[in-house]
């Protein structure tokens, strides 16, 4: 066993050795180790290179707040994660880990030249350096910044792991399982209440895991902890470890990320890697404790310099001495106890250096009995050692002056700048904080959520205080639920209470301008950077933060916020609360994209709606396109056909014989009730009163602004019953709009709306042979011009199936739409297909549908309109029932802007050179005008392969209706295309083809 592994200490299982690799080297640890504890047990402090200066770095903490020891972890192909905190990742046999931000090796890194040139990389470096010349931005600066940005390597392979999410509900959620959380959960574990206790660590216990010396209720802390956990489980409390409360959303919805398999050697079947819990808790107790702050002095980032409390954790929880001859620099009592623990475990503590001159006698006695030298009233001014600290430089402070330096040799330097209550989740609740001058920190004040905060999270110190406060807060949560609880507070012996002071950067006798005194380790921000930012005019902490990037790394300033604030407030000469605290935002710790995506990946990424005829299209080689949530058959290429060839064939076949099209995705709404016709009159622009039963009409729907929102053919199936169709994408929107009007404006109308989109499969037959094909299959109506003229509808039987048959055309040919109960759709399709073989029936997709309708000048809402087009703009003033007293949009249409001359109007365009225009291309009147030209419209629809023998286009052009025959110009990157303005109907303007 290495000299750094202390036998008999820690909670790891040394009888179960585990080995893993770090940068290819095999490292031995034990079951229960993290990567960091195992490396430290092997005397390895150097774990990474810093982001900006590539400085050698080691673990500074032992928990999730770690800013330095970020590694890549790998478990075979695809299972690679960058920036994993070595202090959190548990080891398992075969785990591969790698250090980051180094080339060619961790010990010798070329990028470290940045460190030598550190004077260049000061605050605002990017803003200043990359300002000019402007032309350098795209080719030089941006690629450089992008290459330099980011730590670690993005995974390139697809992640084979699965991720899960689940909703959950509880009465009391306790976040953090240290003494305060345990006591709160115990108090809340009242009969009938659902209590959940979560902790981000692999084990519950929090501080107790690092303080085994405490005696609680007469039991050693760890014995008490296991009996307490057993008692909680027996009382029905759900205890979730490896579960981080990442975010506190509105109304007590807490996001919890549970890591299920990252610690396992063998991945269990059907088990996700992580699960995001959306926990809705009636009451929340935040018991997240406090995080230790570093001291800010030159060289405080050298490997081996770490937080004293973390060193204590490595010893007591993992059985690791971080050094055999450590020194301590502190401004808080807590580090003294760390020193004592390390000394008691066999380390030769070189000195305890305290910035305070007055020290509690109990601590001085403790040091004396262990033979530890005490330097009170001292400052730290530097460290030495290339890849690991080998000494610390300290100076006495006398009446504000820094005295002569002394160098103390050490192989680890334990520091403590005091403790910061963990207020992240409290801040997510929009909670207000109050500055506590005595403790130089923010404390929780008011929160609008049903939430209380207990223990060190609100500035209390010591196990007894945390237990008592947790019990009280747990009780409070129970009482808020209208129940009563009796919380017993356990007695504590060997508690370690204490206080401390908070500092800005420590005083030095060296040039402060050359000091590399780090405040934010992860973003390499120094005290000097913060002062420079203030000198350059940043007055608010929000500006200082963005200028220096202090607190902007993935650790969100867990260690740096208060130190940064203290320095900025000192530089500004204003109190901390006047300088402000930056906002904490979710997630609390870095969270995988997988956890957020959950099940929504691959085939389950998003709903893909398919019609009941989709399977036929798939079997018959259709190419699909997405239309809102639906996938629709786009075209049906035959072997060797291009899209243009397929579409040309489908168009020609439909115009010459018969085409079949799946129109099932059209929205359908059944409007029923005595006031149905009145409702239709009010919703649509068209008049409906005189529309006979079994007749249908094209309906145009506006918003109240007068602009076109939707359209569709509407059939009157009965006196009080309409079959409304909407666009595919508009179905849900139109129904919502109608319900809005019905429920808020016209609740007096006796009419009801039912979505029948998916009740029906809808098949369109179009072409000169459509009636001939269909007639023999229809019972109940003769498909003649007399008995069933264009724009008729009827309930009948088609191929033995109950049907609603419409005679409508979106192609200009004789057209029918057959609606049958949805599951019968494919059966009807196949029946029609067989019956159509004698006519050479051709299946067509949405592209052919688009071409054929454009040739007839039929608009597609959302393509030829964009929310700014009135019926008149679209050439559809005929659809407005002018005699109607009102309809949605009538008043809007009367606005002066909507009746003004020169509005963009829908016209046809024919190019002079016979080329196809690009949809979206801008239009100008005068191509010779200087750039930027005045744009007067754009191409909305354009097709190459139709049946008119030449490309056609629709466009919105200023005053277009009055410009028939004029030439407009469409500037393209390589040339300018001239086109003649025409009407929008390119095919059969007399509608002769509609007749049977």
């Amino acid at each position, binding site marked *: 066993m290495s000299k750094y592994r202390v036998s008999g200490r820690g909670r790891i299982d040394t009888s179960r050795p585990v080995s893993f690799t770090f940068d290819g080297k095999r490292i031995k640890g034990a079951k229960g180790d993290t990567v960091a504890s195992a490396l430290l047990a092997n005397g390895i402090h150097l774990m990474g290179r810093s982001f900006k200066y590539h400085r050698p770095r080691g673990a500074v903490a032992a928990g999730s707040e770690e800013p330095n020891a970020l590694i890549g972890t790998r478990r075979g192909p695809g299972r690679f994660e960058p920036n994993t905190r070595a202090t959190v990742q548990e080891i398992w046999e075969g785990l591969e880990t790698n250090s980051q931000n180094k080339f060619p090796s961790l010990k010798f890194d070329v990028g470290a030249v940045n460190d030598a040139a550190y004077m260049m990389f000061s605050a605002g470096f990017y803003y200043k350096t990359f300002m000019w010349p402007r032309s350098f931005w795209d080719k030089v600066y941006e690629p450089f910044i992008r290459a330099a940005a980011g730590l670690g390597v993005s995974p390139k392979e697809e992640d084979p792991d699965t991720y899960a999410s689940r909703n959950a509900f509880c009465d009391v959620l306790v976040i953090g399982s240290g003494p305060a959380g345990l006591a709160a959960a115990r108090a809340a574990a009242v009969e009938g209440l659902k209590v959940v206790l979560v902790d981000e660590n692999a084990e519950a216990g929090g501080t107790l895991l690092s303080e085994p010396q405490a005696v609680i209720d007469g039991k050693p802390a760890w014995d008490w902890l296991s009996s307490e956990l057993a008692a909680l489980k027996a009382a029905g409390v759900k205890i979730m470890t490896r579960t981080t409360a990442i975010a506190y959303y509105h109304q007590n919805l807490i996001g919890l990320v549970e890591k299920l398999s990252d610690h396992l050697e063998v991945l269990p079947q059907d088990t996700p890697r992580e699960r995001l819990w959306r926990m809705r808790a009636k009451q929340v107790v935040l018991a997240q404790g406090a995080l230790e702050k570093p001291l800010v002095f030159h060289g405080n980032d050298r490997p081996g310099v770490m937080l004293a409390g973390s060193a204590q954790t490595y010893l007591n929880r993992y059985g690791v001495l971080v050094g055999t001859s450590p020194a301590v620099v502190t401004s808080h009592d807590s580090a003294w106890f760390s020193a004592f623990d390390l000394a008691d475990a066999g380390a030769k503590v070189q000195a305890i250096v305290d910035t305070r001159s007055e020290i509690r006698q109990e601590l001085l006695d403790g040091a004396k009995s262990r033979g530890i030298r005490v330097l009170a009233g001292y400052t730290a001014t530097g460290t030495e050692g290339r890849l690991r600290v080998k000494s610390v430089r300290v100076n006495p402070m006398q009446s504000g002056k820094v005295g002569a330096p002394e160098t103390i040799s050490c192989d680890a330097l334990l520091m403590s700048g005091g403790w910061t209550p963990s207020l992240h989740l409290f801040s997510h609740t929009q909670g207000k904080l109050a500055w506590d001058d005595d403790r130089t920190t923010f404390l929780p004040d008011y929160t609008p959520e049903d939430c209380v905060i207990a223990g060190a999270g609100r500035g209390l110190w010591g196990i007894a205080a945390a237990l008592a406060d947790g019990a009280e807060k747990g009780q409070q949560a129970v009482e808020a639920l209208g129940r009563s609880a009796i919380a017993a507070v356990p007695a504590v012996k060997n508690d370690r209470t204490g206080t401390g002071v908070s500092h800005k950067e420590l005083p030095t006798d060296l040039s402060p301008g050359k000091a590399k005194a780090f405040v934010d380790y992860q973003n390499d921000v120094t005290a000097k950077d913060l002062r420079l930012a203030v000198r350059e005019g940043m007055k608010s902490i929000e500006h200082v933060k963005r200028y220096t990037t202090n607190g902007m790394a993935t650790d969100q300033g867990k260690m740096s916020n208060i130190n940064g604030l203290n320095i900025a407030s000192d530089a500004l000469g204003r109190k901390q609360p006047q300088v402000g605290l930056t906002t904490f935002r979710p997630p609390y710790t870095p969270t995988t994209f997988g956890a957020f995506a959950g099940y929504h990946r691959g085939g389950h990424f998003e709903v893909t709606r398919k019609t009941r005829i989709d399977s036929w299209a798939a079997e018959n080689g259709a190419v699909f396109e997405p239309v809102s949530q639906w996938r629709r058959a786009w075209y049906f290429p035959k072997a060797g056909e291009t899209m243009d060839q397929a579409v040309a064939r489908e168009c020609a076949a439909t115009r010459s014989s018969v085409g079949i099209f799946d129109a099932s995705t059209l929205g359908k709404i059944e409007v029923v009730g005595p006031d149905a016709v009145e409702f239709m009159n009010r919703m649509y622009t068209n008049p409906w009163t005189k529309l006979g039963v079994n007749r249908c009409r094209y309906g145009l729907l506006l918003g109240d602004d007068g602009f076109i929102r939707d359209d569709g053919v509407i059939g009157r199936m009965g006196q009080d019953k309409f079959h409304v169709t909407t666009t595919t994408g508009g179905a849900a929107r139109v129904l919502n709009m109608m319900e809005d009007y019905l429920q808020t404006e016209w609740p007096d109308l006796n009419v009801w709306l039912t979505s029948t989109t998916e*009740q029906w499969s809808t098949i369109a037959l179009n072409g000169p042979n459509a009636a001939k094909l269909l007639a023999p299959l229809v019972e109940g109506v003769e498909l003649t011009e007399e008995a069933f003229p264009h724009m008729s509808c009827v309930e009948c039987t088609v191929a033995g199936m109950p049907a609603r048959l419409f005679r409508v055309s979106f192609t200009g040919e004789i057209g029918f739409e057959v609606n049958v109960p949805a599951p019968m759709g494919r059966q009807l399709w196949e029946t029609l297909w067989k019956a159509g073989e004698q006519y050479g029936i051709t299946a067509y997709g949405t592209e052919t549908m688009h071409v054929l309708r454009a040739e007839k000048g039929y608009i597609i809402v959302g393509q030829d309109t964009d929310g700014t087009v009135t019926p008149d703009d679209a050439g559809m003033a005929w659809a407005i029932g002018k005699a109607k007293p009102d309809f949605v949009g009538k008043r809007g249409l009367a606005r002066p802007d909507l009746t003004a001359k020169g509005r963009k109007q829908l016209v046809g365009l024919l190019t002079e050179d016979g080329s196809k225009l690009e949809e979206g291309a801008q239009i100008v009147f005068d191509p010779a005008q200087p750039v930027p030209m005045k744009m007067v419209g754009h191409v909305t629809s354009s097709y190459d392969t139709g049946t008119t023998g030449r490309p056609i286009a629709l466009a919105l052009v200023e005053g277009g209706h009055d410009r028939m025959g004029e030439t407009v110009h469409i500037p393209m990157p390589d040339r300018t295309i001239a086109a003649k303005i025409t009407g929008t109907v390119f095919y059969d303007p007399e509608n002769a083809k509609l007749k049977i």
Partner: protein
Amino acid sequence: MTAHANILTPGTLADTAAARVTVTAAPGRLSLRARGELGAIEGALGLSLPGKIGGRSQDNGIEALCLGPDEWVLLTAPENVASVVAAAAAVYDAHPHSLVDVSARETTVAIDGPRVLDLLCLGMARDPESIAEGEGRRTLFDGQTVLLWRDGATKFRMDVWHSFAPHLLGLLEIGCRELAAETL
């Protein structure tokens, strides 16, 4: 008639120690909208309509679930749909209402098993325990509108429009496996 088997064809989709998901044969399904004194309609249907949203009633071969202040869904045997429609039509003049046949609109899945409440929590933000046995709700599952019928402590039915069903069934299948692999 060619049968086109797919995920919506009745049959068991997933059956694990945690839960079982079965696509059932589609019942006759009607959307009823009406307000005011409902006596005439109730008389025609031979069923008293539940007045509380989420409440259910059953009589005369019809099962009703109240979805809104003027909205019910009625389930009956497919062969009864025509007679129910005819009976309601007979009282339309006396009590105008809307009764629309939506039998062809939806897929129904039966979900049961010891972990069924957890399975529902995979996709539903509502606490399934808030739906009493013998009640039902219109809610969202995996982002899609569904009707959820609680028939017993660990027995549910879920109705969803056909085109959303494959997506939703996909999650239920994943969930059955995931829950079965869990050690509690």
